């Protein structure tokens, strides 16, 4: 009985803490934080980066094994928040693995950039609500 209680407790703790995807970040050139009013462009694989940009860092979203909140739109929204925190206004997907037999999650490699012009004019991915 004690063992069952331990298992239930362990599963509950894992369930409560492990539903988010694993995020690895590396910021080589962080910039001043951006406010929520400042636009951030989300560029998918097919979208091209503009010229004269400064690289701020990289992000990597992986499946933690228990991730459930890992749709493409949700990850792009998380990437946008990370971008703002580190002063980037372009989120560029450089590698995208779709959900498959081995993982129900999108897995993304992302690069973050700072662009001094208006990002609204760049062709970009339009975020949708899941």
């Amino acid at each position, binding site marked *: 009985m004690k063992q069952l209680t331990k298992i*239930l407790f362990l599963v509950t703790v894992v369930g409560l803490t492990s539903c988010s995807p694993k995020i690895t970040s590396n910021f080589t050139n962080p910039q001043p934080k951006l406010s929520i009013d400042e636009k951030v462009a989300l560029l998918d694989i097919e979208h091209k980066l503009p010229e004269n940009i400064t690289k701020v860092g990289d992000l990597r979203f992986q499946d933690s094994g228990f991730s459930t*909140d890992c749709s493409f739109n949700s990850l792009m929204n998380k990437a946008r928040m990370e971008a703002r925190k580190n002063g980037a206004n372009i989120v560029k997907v450089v590698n995208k693995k779709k959900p498959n037999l081995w993982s129900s999650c999108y897995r993304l490699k992302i690069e973050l950039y700072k662009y001094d012009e208006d990002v609204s004019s760049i062709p970009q991915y339009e975020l949708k*609500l899941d």
Partner: protein
Amino acid sequence: MKSIIKSILVSSVLLLSSCATIISGSRQSTEITSEPSSAKVYINEVEVGKTPIQKNLKRNQEYSIILELDGYETYKTKLEKKFNAWFIGNIALGGLIGIIIDPITGAMHKLKPEDIDGSPKRGTTYDTENGKLFIKVSMDIDPISEKIGQLKKLK
């Protein structure tokens, strides 16, 4: 015969005890109203319509909410995921499957507007009824805008 009944009973307890998923579902109906109405609503910076509006939002995500209306200050808040008490039903019934399923479906969470020092943000009132979340926002007049007239309703 007794063993069949026992098996059915055990299976039912195991299979039907994803309490939160069964009772609450993986999405939560969220209704946003504002005073005055017709404010533009952005959820995660995606324009979804004007108040009053109802959306079924995933319970396993957090959302940013922005309301915009000419002449009023832009209202910003967050919907946070909190613990859904129905999840405890799994532990009470010994439902191991429920403990796994509820986190996967997101049903172990419920959405709630962010708190500041334990109270909702100024101008926000909310209520939960039958699992549905109702949020009412009183928008503040923008002090830098100036009223230049008032439209009258035609009879």
